[in-house]
């Protein structure tokens, strides 16, 4: 990965020092760093993915420093910093003093206010629209994990925020990582160039084991508030995770959007439910959604999170002249009138996201994935709505949905009722 052209370009640029950087008209915050050339990074959400993103940020730029972190749990912060300090190439640039380690639901604001240049957003997705809006309002560049919201109002907020980022020349790079994978890029380019003819159907599977099953109520410590209990078990609550279609299978949903040129579908129908009994949370354990596109093409996404079942994570694109398969064996392949197999070396897509983000900052040429981050997230939410309600859902209905899942006035010590699990035919489309 280290011989990618963008990397050497960036390094040269960096070594040319601040003068050139100022001339290209950066947002002020980078200009202010021209003496030391450091880019200060703040991390919001110190779990496994947040820690991974921090490592990639530090690896992307020789002068990136981790300067501030936020989480709800000090032990998670400790673990994150301990791990980062064990990586020799980044250890010296983990410079997070105890005063820059923030805890609680407002910790993200303290990270933003701590004079960082770039913020990495890696909390559960329910928080993301608020965190992202605050970052852009404060002129921060952002790496934003997927998905970006759990409801449509959040998606609309992100679309506004993405526009503001563009106006302010701020970079906003999304964690839809396959878009940054050369192997998948090349595959989609082949399909785009007509290798399978006209695309008529896309079938995506995301059959996996469960992610973070809900612990029994007896495991809840005495005195722990509803809000804390739910956030600590965030994957089991729709307002926090968006359900598995939106939180995990969203990678497949995003590839569907990619194949359909990020144009919205007309409508979708879906089925879903919970077959494995679980207490305490309100998510489903399976979905299957069928999207209809304006040209008559169909896209199907099926996901399941159960133990002991057949697992598969693949994509099948069916065209008038052939088929493209991703995820059956290591290399994507096309069979039909054209026969092709990816033969290159795939690079590290997570690292690529950060390499390009930091290069964009150094060059003063902002990247902005915000719109498709929002629309791919909504595509998942739309499928969930169809499965939850049992109704056909149009894109416009989804885009204009007034269903707000994220609670108002969230309080760490507060009580919060768990909404009942959705029931198709009874749950209303809002």
């Amino acid at each position, binding site marked *: 990965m280290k011989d990618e052209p963008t990397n050497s370009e960036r390094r040269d640029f960096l070594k040319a020092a601040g003068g050139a950087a100022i001339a290209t008209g950066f947002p002020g915050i980078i200009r202010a760093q021209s003496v030391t050339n450091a880019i200060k990074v703040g991390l919001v959400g110190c779990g496994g993915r947040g820690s991974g993103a921090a490592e990639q940020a530090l690896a992307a730029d020789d002068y990136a420093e981790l300067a501030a972190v936020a989480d709800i749990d000090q032990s998670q912060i400790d673990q994150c910093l301990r791990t980062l300090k064990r990586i020799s190439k980044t250890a010296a640039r983990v410079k997070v003093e105890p005063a820059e380690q923030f805890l609680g639901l407002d910790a993200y604001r303290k990270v933003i206010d701590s004079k960082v240049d770039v913020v990495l957003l890696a909390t559960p997705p329910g928080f993301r629209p608020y965190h992202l809006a605050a970052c852009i309002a404060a002129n921060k560049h952002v790496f934003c994990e997927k998905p970006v919201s759990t409801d449509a109002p959040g998606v609309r907020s992100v679309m506004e925020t993405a526009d503001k980022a563009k106006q302010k020349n701020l970079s906003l790079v999304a964690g839809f990582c396959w878009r940054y994978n050369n192997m998948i890029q090349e595959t989609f380019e082949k399909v785009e160039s007509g290798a399978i003819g006209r695309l008529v159907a896309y079938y995506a599977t995301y059959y996996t084991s469960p992610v973070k099953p809900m612990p029994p109520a007896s495991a809840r410590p005495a005195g722990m508030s509803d809000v804390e209990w739910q956030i600590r078990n965030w994957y089991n609550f729709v307002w926090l995770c968006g359900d598995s279609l939106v939180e995990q299978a969203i990678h497949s949903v995003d590839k569907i959007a990619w194949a359909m040129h990020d144009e919205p579908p007309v409508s979708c129908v879906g089925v879903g439910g919970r077959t494995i009994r679980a207490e305490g949370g309100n998510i489903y354990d399976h979905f299957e959604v069928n999207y209809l596109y304006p040209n008559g093409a169909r896209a199907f996404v099926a996901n399941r999170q159960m133990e002991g079942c057949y697992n598969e994570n693949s994509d099948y694109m069916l065209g008038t002249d052939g088929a493209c398969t991703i995820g059956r064996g*290591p290399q994507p392949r096309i069979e039909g009138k054209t026969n092709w197999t990816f033969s290159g070396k795939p690079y590290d897509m997570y690292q690529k996201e950060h390499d390009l983000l930091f290069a964009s900052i150094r060059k003063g040429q902002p990247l902005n994935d915000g719109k498709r981050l929002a629309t791919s997230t909504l595509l998942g939410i739309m499928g969930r709505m169809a499965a939850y309600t049992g109704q056909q859902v149009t894109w416009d209905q989804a885009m204009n949905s007034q269903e707000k899942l994220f609670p108002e006035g969230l309080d760490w010590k507060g009580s919060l009722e768990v909404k009942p699990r959705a029931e198709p035919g009874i749950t209303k489309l809002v």
Partner: protein
Amino acid sequence: MRTALALVLACVFLAVGAESQTAAEESARETRERANVRRIYDRVQARQDPRAARKASPYTVTIPNTTVAYEMVPIPAGEFAMGSAVSDPQRKKDEQPQHKVRVDAFWMQAHEVTWDEYRLFMFASQAGDIAHKDESVDGVSRPTRPYVEMSFGMGIDGYPAISMTQHAANKYAEWLSAKTGEFYRLPTEAEWEYACRAGTNTAYYFGDDASKLGDYAWYAANSQGKYEKVKTKKPNAWGLYDMLGNAMEWTLDQYAPYQPGAAVNSLAANPWAKATKPYPHAVRGGGWNDAADMLRCAARVASDPSWKQQDPQLPKSIWYMTDAQWLGFRLVRPAKPPGFAEMYLYWNSGLEHDEQ
């Protein structure tokens, strides 16, 4: 210590990361592990091997409390020239200089460890390890539950297990030793090449003619982009299948240059390049995705962090090499089991975490 990492492919979920342990946690883990290796050591010592008195011959082991079996093939003690000859036009620098090595007798698994075997280790309930509680079996740390299906659609029954870390292979060896009372470990790089050559000194164990490779191996030219069932090609002279091709195979050794100037006549006995860092380790035999030159007996591959690059979490999984869908292993059983300290070291390199 069972870490709580679930393997993920290209996805995000928080607070499920492998634990980056504090020094105190690490020390407690080591104490527990030493006690467990001691139990397994005692079991191996106590076991009366009915075959020990007889001439070594192939035998079959059925994994206790299961119906899954594998075959062991005797490999006689001997000497061989390790590395490629200067006359080999395909020789690579890291196979030089060719040097003489002596290895003691051992048994080797006739085929790569299959999913049928490895999944017993991944899922305790399938191995009868829940119903038949055993302290030493229970004490071996097992892989975290995989998030996706690890054969990636290439097949399970009779196919080689793939995409595991060297740490996972070591723990499999420890688990199988606890289950059977026979001592197992990964082969050293020298043992692997010696067994592969089976007395030959040509580029392949059937000669130098790569055009015959299709009779013996699954590789880029005939694999159709995936691995195949074990034992579907011809074995070598000692009865070992798929030493070349199908899955590449882990060895114990750090990947390191052979000693420069090592004279052909200075004999090394049972060499083992003990690892001091997580990467690179030596991997042998080439895989279904490799061209003929990487299937030569002397060819060496260095493990690389990119073999895990689809794992988005930090710390990365210590169990899965998400991107190495051509990487497997097989085990050896030395004729003479090692002492306690060595046994511990074979199964615990202390290098399971990438970030070291």
